[in-house]
């Protein structure tokens, strides 16, 4: 039986939800960022270890729903090994895609396309956004010279 839910809870998403990537906590993170979804209380902790301007290791720990956990897991998979600039560009692209803008996503973004189905469920878009917004906030703070985010990132309410 096929139903609208299947567009959101794709097999790929459920796979990421059941076995999220990036679970391993890092010993020497260069960037630490915390995300928080005030609408539902979901919490996310992100750590990044840099090597020569590249995101060498990433840890994502999300206490949230299937969508926010899967989205964070995909982020960990996609972003690992990318230069800072590229990581930011991808995060901005994914954010735009989730907010309904027509964007061309590069081919090498793994399973990310599976998140498109979330857009049919407007109240759930912020779940998918949580990890990406947390990453952008972490990168912003790193560039400003702060190792750790001072206040937790939140997802944008207008989604």
């Amino acid at each position: 039986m096929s139903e609208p839910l299947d567009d959101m809870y794709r097999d790929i998403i459920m796979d990421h939800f059941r076995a999220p990537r990036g679970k391993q906590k890092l010993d020497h993170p260069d960037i630490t960022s915390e995300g928080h979804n005030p609408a539902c209380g979901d919490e996310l902790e992100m750590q990044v270890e840099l090597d020569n301007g590249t995101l060498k290791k990433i840890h994502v720990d999300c206490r949230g729903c299937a969508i926010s956990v899967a989205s964070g897991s995909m982020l960990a998979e996609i972003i690992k090994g990318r230069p800072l600039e590229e990581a930011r560009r991808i995060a901005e692209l994914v954010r735009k895609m989730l907010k309904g803008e027509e964007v061309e996503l590069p081919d090498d973004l793994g399973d990310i396309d599976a998140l498109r189905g979330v857009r049919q469920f407007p109240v759930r878009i912020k779940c998918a956004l949580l990890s990406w917004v947390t990453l952008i906030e972490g990168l912003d703070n790193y560039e400003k010279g702060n190792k750790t985010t001072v206040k937790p990132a939140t997802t944008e309410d207008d989604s």
Partner: protein
Amino acid sequence: MPTNTNNRSPKAETVHSPLDIDRIKADFPILKEKVNNHRLVYLDSAATSQKPETVINAVTDYYRRKNANIHRGIHYLAEKATAAYELTRERVAGFIGGVDPSEVVFTRGTTEGINLIAYTWAEHNINEGDEIVITEMEHHANLVPWVVLAQKKKAALRRIPITICGHLDLSHIDDIITSKTKLVSVTHMSNVLGTINPVEEIARLAHRQGAVVLVDGAQAAPHMTVDVKAMDADFYVFSSHKMLGPTGVGVLYGKKHILESMPPFNMGGEMIREVRFDRVTWNEVPHKFEAGTPDIANVVAFEAALSYLELLGMDRIREHEIALTRYAIERLSELEGLEIQGPQEPELRGGAISFTDPTIHPHDISTFLDTRGIAIRAGHHCAQPLMRILGKVATARASLYIYNDEADVDALIEALIEMRRYFGA
């Protein structure tokens, strides 16, 4: 009672309700709506209740036949509108145990009622070193104003803890409510745990120390008989929209001598006696607290909601909800691993039932149930400190009211079983 023989539980006992739920359902037009091709099963009344035809008609009837500004106009319609508005005040006074109508102040809702007290009574009566007592199960509406006020006044915020069963733990209450306590502000019924709190006992202990007692009745007033005199509350606040009435209307009950001692909240028209450029005197209570043109139409329509509830009888409503809550808890318990928050005994709680699944997040539960036409609430329910105590990020909450029956609970259970299959849990 209508029953659905297809998915009846082998264990749970049939609900014997004193109410004719089929007839009640027919009074609520929205319940005829289809949601995602399913019959609407509305289990989110703790957030807001649905409205019967009589309340919906009362709003339009007001605009069609009575509309005018109240209290000051000297013409036919102004008198009609004023009479209708004041009739609701009298009905509210009766509904909460027969108080003086001048002790009933209309607000925008429970939140505004609490803020009014924080900005007027508390602003003038709480000083450095004083203590405000709340509980660990408060809604943000009865928490944030006190956190902010305590910081501003350098007062201490103390809290009554909860037991693992979701009751207030009164074993050390004498150390919490002391001679330093100026205000005890406590919810009558928890919007997360469903717990009904012993407000009479708390009021007695508070008064012994000379403290003032505020009871948040947002969740209790729609579901049970409230007698503010018997519980000896100094303030009691609640909202129309959770008890069949329109949104935008709330009630603040306050003992007259306390209301009279308080400065006004909003300044403007209606709340004054005499205005000069150098001096203003205040109107009498309750008008002192009702500056500007209120939400007249919705206050008037609130009367229809109170009539509806009184016709059913608050005691019979309570009896119905005890029976249905028992059935719902029994049936939810059939789902292995499902964790139900709060007291398990329906006599000690209301029909807001929070639960969590070991693997499926409340958001995913709510999205899945929605595709089956079932409306529940998922999240922290504006009680983040309580969520932290419970060790949960969020819970799913199904809440029951007069238009819910066994078939609604059965629909919920069936959908939850289907959901577990869907998520492979």
